[in-house]
């Protein structure tokens, strides 16, 4: 018995679910297809707007667009005229068109923070890169991609994760982050799930919130009836033989 339990313990692994949301109810986009634009102001210390747009596209395609269970689709936009050089999150948000995420460099992000991402629940998200953080300029390309992907996670509604391997963990130092973890998959899946193939606006699933109180309901009666019918058919067939 001990051997069997040991084998089961070695063979099977548990899941780490640690993702969080930035707000309750979740701040998320109303549609699954989101365009990401880049602000026109160049990042003085690190990359040009064009290079930033390429990094954003890589962050979207290599990370969030690869979650099969998540319906989110981040698409490359363009370099737009907005300038967020001296903006805080609150100042930059009104400049973001609805249904989009705006990425730009700002010298108002301070301290050792590499970037900030935020979704205000009004169908828009913002990512501000810390232009004067020498650490962002010194990152290699995959680290820059991971940093932008992390902030994009905030911009579409995810909070930090307590799983140190997760892309949404608050710190990225000394860790290889070339792929998402299952925890990141779960967070994206929770916010943007694929609808059922036959979903219909007038029909919804029974959840704990809308479950009728008492009784077994239509589904229960149907299932019991079906089992009874199949069992009766099987019984009659045997009798006939």
């Amino acid at each position, binding site marked *: 018995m001990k051997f069997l339990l040991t084998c*089961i313990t070695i*063979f*099977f*692994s*548990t*899941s*780490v*679910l*640690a993702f*969080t*949301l*930035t707000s*309750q109810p*979740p701040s998320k986009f109303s549609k699954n297809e989101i365009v990401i634009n880049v602000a026109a102001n160049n990042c003085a210390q690190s990359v040009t707007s064009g290079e930033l747009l390429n990094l954003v596209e890589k962050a979207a395609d290599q990370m969030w*667009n*690869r*979650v*099969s*269970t*998540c*319906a989110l689709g981040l698409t490359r936009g363009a370099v737009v005229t907005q300038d967020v050089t001296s903006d805080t999150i609150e100042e930059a948000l009104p400049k973001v068109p609805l249904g989009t995420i705006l990425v730009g460099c700002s010298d108002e992000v301070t*301290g*050792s*923070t590499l970037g900030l991402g935020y979704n205000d629940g009004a169908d828009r998200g913002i990512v501000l890169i810390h232009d004067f953080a020498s650490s962002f300029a010194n990152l290699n390309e995959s680290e820059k991609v991971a940093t932008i992907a992390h902030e994009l996670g905030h911009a579409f509604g995810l*909070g*930090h*994760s*307590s799983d*140190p*391997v997760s892309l949404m963990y*608050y*710190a990225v130092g*000394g*860790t*290889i*982050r*070339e*792929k*998402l*973890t*299952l925890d990141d*998959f*779960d967070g994206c*899946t*929770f*916010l943007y*799930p*694929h*609808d*059922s*193939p036959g979903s219909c606006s007038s029909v919804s*699933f029974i*959840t*704990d*919130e809308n479950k009728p109180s008492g009784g077994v309901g239509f589904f229960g009666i149907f299932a019991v009836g*079906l*089992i009874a019918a*199949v*069992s009766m058919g*099987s019984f009659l067939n045997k009798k006939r033989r």
Partner: protein
Amino acid sequence: MLRIFSILCCLMISLNSHSMVTVGGYVPFGLSTQKDEAGGKNTFSFKPMIAINTVMPIPAINHVFLPEFGIVAHGTQTDEYKKTTMFFLLDVGYLLTEKLLLRYGLGTFLTKISGDGAIVTLPNGTTTRGFYRPNEGETSWNTTLDLGIEFAFDANNAIRFETYLFSWLKSARKLSYSLSYTYYL
């Protein structure tokens, strides 16, 4: 989910065909997800699964129809989150040799994730702030392309390796797979 599973279980057994019970491990997106800080993958991170299935011969095309319904228990480390995967496979099988069966078909996977809605305080830059765990359940539906191979030791026992291709029409296509033991009732 458990209610649907038990009802389908009763149904399949009462069909009085060659019913089977399968137990094993399922690896969701093992080659595409990171497991540790060194970049290691979840290749062998098996989650326990149980399934019931049945065999219906299709003599006209020399195949067998292998509908299957199963549940994967993700065994989360804490009670704050719950995650369950349910799947329904519509595979057909072709006997390659006397003991080797090739399986292929379509599947539907349901991934349900829920949380307790509590506020968690986590580091945020140089300070901390409150973030929120989900307070309701969300279910994501996926259609998969399935391909697998089953080796029968004898009339009652078989071992199976099967792959499930998610989002096969998109660039986000990802592979999950399972290794399982099947007992023919």
